């Protein structure tokens, strides 16, 4: 590991004030410390923000404000999260292991990096790690990489489960930074790779996530489901956060679908959502909506399986949610 200096910030404002080029903020460290050990992350200054007083889950005028330093475990078992946002509790609980959830923070979960094997191997080219060096995944092992929204420069996926649920819940990410405070509505935090895959998010240097705020839950039933290679402690091949509200006449009154494991960002299936509104809440309509969303997919040779897997997951999940 390359030498760095370590300091603990006294407040969010103090962290932003002390930020300078070469600085990285440290949360629970479950991804960053590993990336430093691999030589992928090479901070000169490590500024610890994990003990800032941003660790409360509070109700503010019918909304739920979750501090950036709240540990994943504490978010998932919070009574209000379990009662009002079960999809979010479920998404967090399906991520990582008990130990890692105890350490990992909410902001760190959002800002974790892709697990693409080429990104994590400094002996290989990678446009995300070393812009302009190339993307060996396109010709190589991309079996768990993107089928939607990728570019010729990068086919990485975002690994978070929590972010997928937050995208469906239209959570707001609260940020402070050298340019002042701002609010980023999900799924707007993460970006598609385009020709700048080194940028995972729309954050600017020095920006610090301070909280995630959840609006009141949308009407309807919700589910988070995840398909993976083993029953626990594995990243998603495909995952879904879905909300379905069916009117008395059996038609879809409201619908939200966010997909994980398919793109560089949580993927809001807006096309499918639009198509479903007003249609009967039946398997046929769900299948048509899933297929129209996935028409945009551009699978690579070794990850084409994800398209029918995503289609079936959308249809099965909506069928389970329909009354």
């Amino acid at each position, binding site marked *: 590991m390359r030498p760095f*200096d*370590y300091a*603990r910030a006294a407040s969010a404002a103090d962290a932003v004030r002390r930020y300078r080029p070469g600085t990285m903020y440290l949360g629970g*460290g479950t991804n960053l410390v590993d990336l430093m*050990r691999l030589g992928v992350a090479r901070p000169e200054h490590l500024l610890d923000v994990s003990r800032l007083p941003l660790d409360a889950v509070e109700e503010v005028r019918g909304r739920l404000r979750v501090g950036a330093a709240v540990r994943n475990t504490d978010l998932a*078992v919070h009574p209000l999260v379990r009662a009002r946002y079960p999809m979010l509790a479920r998404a967090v609980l399906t991520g990582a292991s*008990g*130990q890692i959830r*105890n350490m990992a923070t909410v902001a760190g979960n959002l800002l974790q990096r892709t697990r693409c094997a080429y990104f994590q191997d400094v002996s290989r080219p990678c446009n995300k790690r070393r812009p302009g060096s190339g993307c060996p995944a396109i010709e190589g092992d991309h079996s768990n990489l993107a089928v939607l929204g990728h570019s010729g420069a990068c086919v990485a996926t975002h690994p978070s489960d929590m972010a997928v649920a937050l995208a469906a819940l239209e959570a707001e990410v609260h940020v402070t930074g050298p340019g002042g405070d701002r609010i980023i509505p999900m799924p707007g935090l993460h970006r598609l790779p385009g020709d700048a895959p080194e940028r995972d998010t729309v954050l600017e240097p020095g920006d610090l996530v301070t909280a995630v705020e959840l609006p009141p839950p949308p009407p309807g039933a919700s589910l988070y489901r995840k398909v993976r290679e083993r029953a626990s402690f594995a990243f998603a091949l495909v995952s879904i956060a879905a909300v379905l509200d069916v009117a008395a006449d059996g038609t879809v009154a409201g619908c939200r679908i966010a997909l994980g494991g398919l793109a560089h960002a949580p993927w809001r299936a807006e096309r499918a959502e639009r198509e479903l509104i007003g249609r009967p809440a039946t398997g046929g309509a769900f299948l048509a909506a899933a297929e129209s969303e996935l028409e945009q997919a551009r699978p690579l040779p070794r990850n084409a399986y994800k398209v029918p897997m995503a289609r079936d997951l959308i249809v099965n999940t909506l069928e389970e949610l329909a009354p």
Partner: protein
Amino acid sequence: MDIRLTVNGRPHTLDVDPRMSLLDLLRERLGLIGSKKGCDHGQCGACTVLVEGRRANSCLALAVAMDGLSVTTVEGLADGEHLHPLQAAFIEHDAFQCGYCTPGQLCSAAGMLGEPGPSAVTENLLDDPELTPHEIRERMSGNLCRCGAYVNIVSAISEVAR
């Protein structure tokens, strides 16, 4: 950098390189070699310790970031000559073969038994479910055992959970 750390009830003041992990500090500076380095990437759980009573992967924790905290390792689980109930149950149920994963399994199980609320396999998220073998398997998924002693590990933990 100077840090203060309480390990198994004993306070220490240590000068550490910011790059040092909590695992390396425990093993190399304090001679507590119970915690094991399986992967050094957070994937196997052999390095699991309790930090402020909560289980954590000590390979992913920087020692400098633990300043002022209290850590319990497998060496601190027993009460003098009296084994921790989990240690006794692991012996009783023959819950290990080579023993490499065992310190991590023990610390992880000790932390897990104190973690309330649902897991990913709990049907109703509002429940505080009973720790069935199914629940224990899910909650212990961060601890791998290359010898495959899982069946006996689950029965040992089940006995203590009852």
